[in-house]
Structures are given as C-alpha cells and as structure tokens.
C-alpha cells in the first residue's frame, strides 16, 4: 500500500509550463557559457582527445599515428615502472594529504588565537604557497644538500648523521613529502582559518557552560563545524597530490630521484611522452586515462561516503 502512496500526493506543478522557466534557463546558460566554453576547450576536449590518443601508436609526422586498440594499456599494465609509479603516488598521497591537513588544522587553530604579529604569521604561512613552485623547489634542493644543506646542519645539533635526502633512494620520498607538507600547509590553513572564523561563538559558550575542556571543545565543536572546509581542502589536495610532477622534477634535478624512487604517475606519463624525447604519446595518454579513473573514483567515494560526515550547520 505504502509503495503507491506517491500516487495520491497532489502533483507538483511542472516547472517548464511556467513561461519564466525558459527565460531564466536561457539566461542561466548565457551566464554559464564562458566557463562552459573554457572547460570544454581545456578540460573536456583534452580528456576525450587523450582517450582517443591512447588507442594509437603516436606519430609526430602523421598524427595521431596507427590505431592499435588497447595495446598501450597492455604495455603500461605490463610495465614494472608503471606499477612502481602508481605505488609511489599512493604512498605520497596517503601520507602527504592527511599529514598536511592535520598540520594545517593545527596551524589554523593557532592562527585563530589572538596572537601578536598575527597578520605577519598568517602571511608567512601563505608565502610558501604563493611563491612559484620552481623557485621554492630550488631553495629546498639546497636545503636538502647532504653536505652543506640547512636541514642536515640543524640535524647535526641532535647528533643525527648526514642524510643524503636527494641521493639515497630511502630518503627520496620522505624528502618529497616533507617539502609538499611545507608548501601546501599555508594554503590549507588559510581556508580552514576562514572556516574557523565563521563558527558562531555561541557553540563555544555553550560548551564552556557544559564544562568542556579545551581539547573536547576542539574535537566536539570546532572540528565538526569545520567539516565543510576540511572536506573541500581534502578533495582539492587529494586531486592535486595525485598530479604531483613539478616538485619532483625540480627537486631531483630533472629526474625522478635516485633509482626512480620518487617517480610518480604524472612523472611516468611525462617520461613516456615528451620528457627525454621518447614521444610515446599513446602510452602517456593511456596512463593519463588510468590516472583520471583513479582520481574520479576517489572523488566519487569522497562525495558519497565522506560527505555524510560533513556538517554544514
């Protein structure tokens, strides 16, 4: 019986019968047109084009070359270095994304306190993000220098032996992750700070009346009410981290680290493609499609599962 209840409900007026509906819809599309055109040209067309390219053996002289079906996919799935690059990418994303978020959350909480030189502190956090990645990567390359670098110099005070950050395969990935956390923590902290400042003071007052401790307030009030910003930052940084390339390329002087220890999926894509003059654009496109599928699956998972834990009010 209940299944048919909807039949007894009064029917909603159909919106398209309203003459204003088409007018409003038309205007909506006019406003959306610029971004749709840009997205179409620079996102959707390249994506479908890349998928098409992945089915060809590339020829620069006669693009796109010879149709070879799914041979490029077979090649990359049989290539040890593809799986290694994928594993490196998951390690990088799995550590750097939550670690950056955690540090950013702590930094935002600190920056939300009435401190001296607060604006200077906020700016210094953000500076790392707005400085061009090539420039900061070069600076970190010097900081990581195993003989003269600042990092080893500081560690020397704690009797830590010299670490060959960029030359030892064991340390290549940690070096990349540390650099990445430093670079993105400011950006994420600023977004979280904006969220923190929008939390109504009454929640804190209520918690205080209930006798909650500082940590309890942070865990039970601040974090839940900050979930929209945390969710946003999480999605954005996850997508960005899967695409890491420039940091690797500059930090390791145009390579993917010793014994390719920091070769990420985008680096693999680039090395199959134009980097090093190999021009296997079909293989590069196939690996790009796989990367797209991974990011798409993760984003979908976040949208459906994680979002249930997001409190918008």
């Amino acid at each position, binding site marked *: 019986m209940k299944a048919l209840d909807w039949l007894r409900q009064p029917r909603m007026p159909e919106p398209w019968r309203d003459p204003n509906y088409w007018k409003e819809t038309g205007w909506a599309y006019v406003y959306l047109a610029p971004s749709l055109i840009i997205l179409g040209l620079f996102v959707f067309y390249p994506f479908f084009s890349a998928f098409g390219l992945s089915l060809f053996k590339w020829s*620069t*002289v006669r693009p796109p070359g010879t149709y070879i079906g799914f041979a490029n996919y077979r090649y990359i799935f049989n290539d040890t270095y593809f799986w290694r690059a994928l594993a490196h990418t998951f390690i990088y994303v799995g550590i750097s994304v939550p670690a950056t978020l955690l540090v950013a959350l702590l930094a935002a909480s600190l920056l939300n306190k009435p401190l001296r030189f607060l604006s200077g502190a906020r700016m210094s956090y953000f500076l790392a993000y707005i400085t061009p990645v090539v420039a900061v990567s070069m600076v970190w390359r010097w900081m990581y220098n195993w003989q003269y670098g600042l990092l080893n110099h500081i560690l020397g005070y704690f009797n830590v032996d010299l670490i060959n950050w960029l030359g030892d395969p064991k340390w290549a990935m940690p070096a990349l992750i540390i650099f990445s956390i430093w670079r993105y923590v400011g950006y994420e902290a600023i977004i979280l700070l904006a969220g923190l400042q929008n939390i109504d003071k009454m929640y804190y007052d209520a918690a205080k009346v209930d006798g909650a401790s500082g940590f309890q307030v942070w865990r039970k009030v601040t974090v839940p009410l900050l979930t929209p910003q945390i969710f946003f930052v999480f999605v954005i940084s996850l997508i960005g981290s899967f695409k890491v390339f420039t940091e690797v390329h500059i930090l390791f*002087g145009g390579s993917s680290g*010793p*014994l*390719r220890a920091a070769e990420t999926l985008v680096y693999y894509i680039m090395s199959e493609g134009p980097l090093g003059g190999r*021009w296997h654009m079909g293989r590069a496109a196939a690996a790009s499609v796989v990367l797209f599928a991974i990011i798409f699956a993760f984003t979908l998972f976040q949208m459906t599962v994680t979002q249930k834990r997001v409190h918008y009010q």
Partner: protein
Amino acid sequence: MRRVLLVLLAGLLAFGVFAVAQEAVSIHFLHAMKAKHSVYIDELVAQFMAEYPYITVTTEYGGSYGDVEQKINAGIVAGNPATVTQLYENAITPIAEALVPIEDSLTQAEIDDIIPGLRDSATVNGKMYSVPWNKSIMILYYRKDLVPEPPTTWTEFFLMCQELTVDLDGDEAIDRWGTCFRPYNPEIFLNFLHQAGGTLLNEDWTEATVNDDRGFLAMDYVASLLPYALVGSDYESDMLAANQIVMFVSTSAGASYNISAAETVGAELGFALAPQGPATDGTMIQGTNLCVTEKGQTQAQIDAGILFVRFMLRAENMAYWAVQSNYLPSTYAAYESQVWKDAVAADPKKAVMADAMKVGFGPLNHPAYSDFRYHMTTRWEEVILGAKSAQDALDELAQDFAQYL
C-alpha cells in the same frame, strides 16, 4: 625591329626571373644557445642577411635542447614548425619525413668535407637530413696540482683514482675522490663500452649485444671504480669546486665551467685524451645538428633555410662559431682554416679536443635511441648506486632493448 623586340622580351624575362628569385622571404631559426652563445649566432645571421638581402632570419632561443625538440615536434603536428632548427641526431631520425633531405642540396665537396663519423650519424635511410653544427667531445679533465701526468690507460686511471681517494680531515670518511659518476649521464658508459670494443646492438640492429663479454668488461670496470668515485647528481664542476674530485671524463662543452671551478680551489685544470681502453681510446662526440623543416614551409622558405645551413657550414663560419662558442668544428676545412689554427695556437686545450675528435664516435642513429637511452639511464644508475651487479644490469638492459628491435 624584330631583333630589338626579342632583346626587350629577353630582358623582361630575365628581370622577371631575377625579381622572382629575389622575392623577400622570412625564415625562423629556433636554437638552444643561451645569450653567451647566441651573440655569435646573431653575428653570423647578420652576415648571412647582408649576403642575401632578400632573406630575413628571425632567431629565437627556444630553451634547452629538450625544449627545442618539444617545440619542433609540436610545430610539426600543428603544421608550423620553425624553418631551421637545432636537434640531436636521435631526435631528427623519428621526424625525418617532415624534414628536408639536405644531402640533395649539398655539393659533393660539402658532403665530403664533413667528418665521416658525423656524416654517418646525420644519415637516415641512406640520406643526410641534417648537418653537424655544435659538437663537443668527451675528454679527461684533471687537476694539475694533484696529477702531474694524466693517466693514458684504464689501468693507470684505476690506480690513480685509488691513490687520489683520500680522507683529508682524519674522520675516517672520504672527502676527496679520484673521479666521479653522475646517475643521469649514461653517455659515460657508452665511452667505456666503445673503448672496450663493445656496441649496443649488432651490425644489422637485430640483436642487443650490450651484455656480451665486451659490455661486461666495460661495466665491470665501472663497478671496480666505484669505491674511488663520488656518485652524485651535481655537475662535475660543482664537485670540482667543492674539492671533492680530482679527475673525470666529461664533455668539452663544459670546459669553461670546469676551469672556473678548479680556480675556486686554487688549482689549474689539465686536459687530455680519455684513458685508452682495451680496444681504443675513442670517446663519444656529442652535440646537435642543423636541419631544415619541410612541413609547413613554402618552397622559398625551404630554399632560404638550405642556403642558411650551407652558409653555417662554410669553413670560415664554422671555424668562427667553434672558436667563439668553444664547440668543435665538424668539417675538415674548418680545422684547416687560419681562424681555427690561430685559436689552437693561443689555447692548447683546443688541440686536445681536436685530437679527441679524430678518434671520436657518434651516437647510434637508431629510431628508438631515445628509448635505449632511457633504459640505459635506469640500468647505469642501478650499477653506480650498487643496486645491481654489472652483469644483471646489462642482461636486463639487453631485454629492455629487445622490445624495440
């Protein structure tokens, strides 16, 4: 009257042909030479335009060799590449169809004047598609204060590296090494391989021979040097300036950087032929070639591009360019020119480089060479970082090559 008319008609025709030949044409020269060298390119271009006033050459610094290669490839796909460009031989081979087979436009004298090894590496399917232009060769650099006489054989080099590797401050850690190896520079392995008498592939390119006895001899020699070699990604000049290395085999193109680096530690740098291996003392010739693109060009642009390349190939221009840029001439006539002879008399290191060129070898001009180099880099790094034995790395390299043969 008829005769006058005929003369007038002939005159008009001749003028017409002349006018067509002199039609203004613009060409684009995309190169990878930074400001220091591009000054001399601009001088040569100015001379060329003075000689051919109807041709305008626009020069553009396109970034590194890799950047220029990417721009040319993208230009070919888009149908508008630069008319003349500078590329490695192995970057030319895969796009030869889009280039002018320049051999057809050179005189036999011009072809014969090019050093044979360089001519071979510029040849694709039996025809030269480019001409060698900015060439360098691997030579031995050594600190004269620590090495009175440079080593001339592999054995001498090994023994001297052993002796020169020292702990300078008594902390039981090595501070200065006899030599160095860089992970992303597999060309040094090609030197050893060639000197051991080995090759990457057999003669008809059907089988990888890199893992045969001669290949093993070369890689095993590298492995034996590892305790006395600083392995790092820094440039040799940086290691030299930090007083970390004493001698190394590297490209002659880096001579000015290496001289300055040695000066920072108060040392004078010596130059010599690379130590001789069991088979030969030849080292690898590196550097790029000039080529003219056919795709996206008008016939007038192609003709102007060919004229420009031939102009650069002339003995006086080749010698001038080599002297100013510290690259090495690629034609016999340039070596015989007074400009070059004067330069050698004033700078003895140029004589060492020229001697090295006589026994040098060019890169393998296989269409998949970029792939070979990619795999060589991986395996070379595995050996010098101690991750794989010489034989294992070579066997895997042969398997890597097999997929392209």
